[in-house]
């Protein structure tokens, strides 16, 4: 079933979609390379890759159907077991035992009321999950999330439910849902013709819409195996009651670590000290240890520090490097090192603002490279990073509290390049684009009033004070545009990188063809070449007009329910379209 010709070590598929799951010989090694290359960003089988690397699915495709049906049945059983309906006939319906007021141990109502409290707590969080993404406003999705979290809590009483888990679950459901939709779409468009009937059946089973809840639970449990260490209750090592001292109060960083979370945060502090002693000293002088802000970073796997589409890429890389804690720690430190110039020039309040509202990363790719460098300095070269964050805005896209009144230019990130893949000519080519975007905005500002830049939350319903600041808002708008252009630039860089990879692969194949002795091998190689050229023709990009603004999550809702289309890359100046295609300003 898997073609043996395409397992060479250096090979990285250019695009990775549902059929690739069948075509390639899947292994951790291959998937790690796929994930690191960023191919999954436009892929329609990210969820499958996550399930594979987390061992929810075996690598042998022929075993998938059995494995899937087993895990789906298991969830159904858990759900029946834990979501108690006292009217269910499996309980005695004798009113003496089964009524809301009976104080008897076997009374199913006891559990029912207990669960209701838990359901209540979960519900409060579920209803506040990604409020700006349409997908999560859907009642059935919310219900699904609540059920999954409740079943998880009951199945794992030592971890239970804790705030934050809902934001681990949400991206998982989102990814599985999108992939299921994309598969349906591909099927309807006859894109699966090269598969045999059996192969298509396997994929049908994998990307089955009906099992969204079951599959999400299964994936969630696997992710939680890695993440639950940061949700555990602190171990209580206390002796019987003693008088509580009023003062002095120990500082959090001085107390002995009571949980793995605290241990890890201490590790992170030490790692920072090794990597960047100046920064570490600055933060410790200000009395800002990682414990003060980092619990959220770890518990949500950086979910609030990055916009969703970058977050998913980060998870691609993170989930395959298990146990994930070491890489997560390196990512944590990289986040700090990346904004060291901002932190070093800020006081206590300023630093906390940056740490609590992390300035968006301009180029996620070089960020990931930096983290991987810290993880394994010998294997991974350190990327050139100058300034890679937009200090003037938050991930939500609203202006950063640390920003001074006078609109600042974003840091040089837009123009400075962070990784080697970038050629100077791209920068030159972009200069007029910036100008055009700015001009478009300025022209519009004369005719249209009331800008509304996409915001993640905090969207004011009543904002009596905002009207007089129109001018300032336009400056924000321009900055937002600049930053979006830089997003597209990053995307172009990715395309450039892919092209490099294709040309490398071509060279290797050419060499193989030259050395090939048997005609059979020649046939395999020429087949590979054809595939390569097909991929090259259809390098997937999110259509520019619908691309989500990089640092706002709002854009996601526009693209999420439909499958990602493939569109050939067009000219640089298409980026100007973004300005004209944006919703009315």
């Amino acid at each position, binding site marked *: 079933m898997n073609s043996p010709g395409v397992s060479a070590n250096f090979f990285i598929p250019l695009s990775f979609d549902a059929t690739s799951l069948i075509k390639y010989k899947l292994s951790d090694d291959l998937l790690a390379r796929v994930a690191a290359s960023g191919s999954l960003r436009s892929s329609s089988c990210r969820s499958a890759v996550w399930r594979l690397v987390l061992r929810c699915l075996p690598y042998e495709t022929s075993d998938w159907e059995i494995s899937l049906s087993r895990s789906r049945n298991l969830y159904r059983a858990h759900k029946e077991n834990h979501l108690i309906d006292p009217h269910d006939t499996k309980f005695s319906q004798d009113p003496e035992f089964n009524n809301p007021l009976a104080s008897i141990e076997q009374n199913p109502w006891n559990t029912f009321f207990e669960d209701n409290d838990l359901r209540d*707590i979960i519900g*409060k*969080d579920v209803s*506040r*999950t*990604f*409020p*700006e993404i349409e997908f999560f406003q859907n009642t059935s999705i919310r219900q699904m999330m609540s059920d999954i979290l409740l079943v998880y809590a009951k199945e794992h009483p030592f971890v*239970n439910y*804790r*705030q*934050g888990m*809902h*934001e681990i679950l949400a991206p998982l459901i989102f990814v599985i849902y999108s992939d299921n939709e994309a598969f349906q779409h591909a099927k309807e468009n006859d894109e699966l013709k090269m598969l045999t009937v059996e192969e298509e059946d396997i994929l049908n089973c994998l990307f089955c819409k009906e099992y969204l809840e079951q599959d999400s639970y299964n994936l969630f449990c696997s992710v939680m195996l890695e993440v639950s260490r940061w949700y555990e*209750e*602190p171990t*209580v*090592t*206390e*002796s019987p*009651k*003693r*008088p*509580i*001292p*009023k*003062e*002095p*109060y*120990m*500082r*959090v960083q001085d*107390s*002995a670590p*009571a949980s793995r979370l605290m241990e890890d945060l201490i590790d992170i502090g030490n790692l920072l000290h090794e990597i960047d002693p100046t920064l570490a000293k600055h933060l410790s002088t200000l009395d800002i240890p990682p*414990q*003060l*802000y980092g*619990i*959220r970073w770890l*518990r*949500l796997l950086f979910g*609030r520090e990055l916009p969703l589409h970058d977050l998913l890429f980060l998870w691609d890389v993170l989930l395959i490097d298990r146990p994930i804690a070491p890489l997560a720690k390196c990512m944590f430190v990289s986040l700090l090192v990346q904004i060291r110039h901002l932190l070093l020039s800020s006081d*206590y*309040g300023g630093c*906390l*603002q940056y740490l*609590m509202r992390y300035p968006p990363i301009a180029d996620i790719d070089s960020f990931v490279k930096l983290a991987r460098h810290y993880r394994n300095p010998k294997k991974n070269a350190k990327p050139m990073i100058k300034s890679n964050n937009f200090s003037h805005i938050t991930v939500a896209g609203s202006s950063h*509290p640390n920003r001074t009144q006078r609109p600042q230019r974003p840091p040089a990130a837009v123009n400075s390049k962070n990784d080697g893949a970038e050629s100077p000519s791209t920068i030159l080519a972009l200069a007029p684009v910036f100008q055009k975007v700015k001009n478009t905005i300025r022209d519009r500002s004369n005719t249209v009033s009331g800008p509304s830049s996409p915001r993640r*939350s*905090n*969207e*004011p*319903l*009543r*904002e*009596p*004070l905002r009207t007089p600041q129109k001018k300032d808002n336009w400056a924000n708008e321009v900055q937002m545009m600049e930053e979006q252009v830089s997003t597209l630039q990053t995307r172009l860089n990715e395309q450039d990188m892919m092209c490099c990879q294709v040309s490398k692969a071509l060279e290797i194949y050419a060499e193989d063809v030259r050395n090939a002795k048997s005609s059979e091998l020649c046939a395999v190689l020429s087949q590979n070449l054809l595939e390569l050229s097909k991929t090259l023709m259809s390098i997937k990009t999110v259509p520019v007009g619908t691309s989500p603004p990089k640092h706002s999550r709002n854009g996601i809702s526009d693209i999420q329910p439909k499958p990602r289309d493939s569109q050939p890359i067009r000219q640089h100046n298409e980026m100007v379209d973004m300005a004209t295609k944006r919703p009315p300003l």
Partner: protein
Amino acid sequence: MLETNVDQKSFKFKIVLLGEGCVGKSSLVLRFVENKFSCKHLSTIQASFQNKTVNVEDCQADLHIWDTAGQEKYHALGPIYYRGSNGVLLVFDITDRKSFEKVKNWVLEIKTCLGNTAEILIVGNKIDLEEERQVTRQDAEAYAESEGALYMETSAQDNVGISDAFESLTAKMIEHSRTRSTEPPSTNRSIRLIDNDEAERSKKCCR
């Protein structure tokens, strides 16, 4: 940091918001700092930080505001944030009796751990939902008075009483720092030698 000087005009204070989940702590801060309200926002995980400078009478105070996660399970983290606070804002939802009971627990804990170094302001939020009210103003006021705390009612949605609340608390903190010479614990940077026995006890008090 703080001097007991009646002529002092500028102050730095640390304020912490505590209370049950979903009572509107983040909304209060958002309204106070940015004068915005959003009915769709994210749950606070761990904590969040804001600063704002306010003028009360002829004094200026720089407020460092810590907004904490409300969920029960995060309770253990409380001490990280209220340590060294000059003011504590205990928020409850007037339409939720349970959240008011929770405030009472917090009062006990704060009094035990901070003694009288911090001023307490109890806030009943969501008065725009008057018809669903479960905690009467009289009850809450009487309780606050018995604990020597201030009580105020607010609506983050309709922008009622928010700046009043923060300003009253600030005024109290100014008065406090002028009249009492106790130095708040956070400013104490000297090294303390704590034997294990004591270390264990101080952990204990966070529960």
